[in-house]
């Protein structure tokens, strides 16, 4: 036995369980199953409706939060869905940022990183939000809506897939020329 492995049994068990949990939480399929089920539970039984299939959406929930803030601070009457106007606002987007912060801190992956092109990202953000509100959901909610059986959602899913392929081929073409 080498000196480095002389840990207490409790620590050894903890390391093994952390490894197993790490493999589970690091899998995209586990993410899909857990998030799909939780979005339905939150949307159907915990009151995040109407509209239907509204459990998880970054664009719509973000819009509900900003509209709620503007309405309460400025006294205006911007559009909020019924789910976002039940007294307190929807905090999904805050939860996502905080959850990701906690996960990256716990696993030593948090790093303030500036890759440049920030003004371009600002413009893309504005365009993505406008398009998402026009269509009625961010790509994640479009997937969940399609699972709900929403024909408009299925149509939007096909459109998003077309857009992704077109943009990817454009990027590859631009990188090769």
């Amino acid at each position, binding site marked *: 036995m080498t000196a480095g492995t002389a840990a207490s049994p409790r620590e050894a068990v903890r390391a093994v369980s952390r490894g197993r949990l790490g493999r589970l939480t690091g899998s995209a399929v586990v*993410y899909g199953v857990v998030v799909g089920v939780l979005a339905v539970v939150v949307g159907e039984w915990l009151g995040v409706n109407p509209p239907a299939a509204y459990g998880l959406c970054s664009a719509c929930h973000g819009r509900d939060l900003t509209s709620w803030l503007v309405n309460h601070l400025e006294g205006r009457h911007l559009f909020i869905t019924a789910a976002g106007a039940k007294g307190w606002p929807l905090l999904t987007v805050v939860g996502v940022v905080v959850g990701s912060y906690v*996960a990256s801190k716990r696993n030593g992956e948090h790093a303030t990183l500036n890759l440049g092109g920030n003004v371009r990202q600002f413009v893309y953000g504005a365009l993505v*939000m406008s*398009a998402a509100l026009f269509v009625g959901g961010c790509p994640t909610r479009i997937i969940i809506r399609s699972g709900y059986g929403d024909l408009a959602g299925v149509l939007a899913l096909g459109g998003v897939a077309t857009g992704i392929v077109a*943009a990817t081929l454009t990027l590859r073409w631009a990188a090769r020329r």
Partner: protein
Amino acid sequence: MIVSLASLGLGLVVGYLGQRSRMCSIGGLRDFVLVRDTALLKGAGALLVSAWVAFSLARFVSGSGHGLIAAGTTPSGLRAVAAIAVGAILLGFFATLSGACPLRQHVLAGQGRIGAWWFLAGFYVAAVVYTSWIQPSIGGWVL
């Protein structure tokens, strides 16, 4: 109150798992087209299938029908179909150019990516601008 807590809790879970799995709802197809990598595409497929199964179970439990197509979700006409298709193509196009889907940008922002902070700034400015001026002027002709 319960709505806020439920959405906050769901957000925390999504943020944590999203950071660990690097899941992105547009990244799957992009990676498949570029390098034939299907890891994230499987995640998107799992999300679709599990949402479908869970919604079917929820309908079965509450006894409210069992149709595959939900009532009242059919686009009202050709104009609505065209509007949704064009809007969705633009959504997929710009999201791919920005590098990640909006949910993944939130995760990257929590992880410390400065480009994602700028993305979110544009995102929420556009939310207020869109609901203040664009949405009232285009009305409800999309659906």
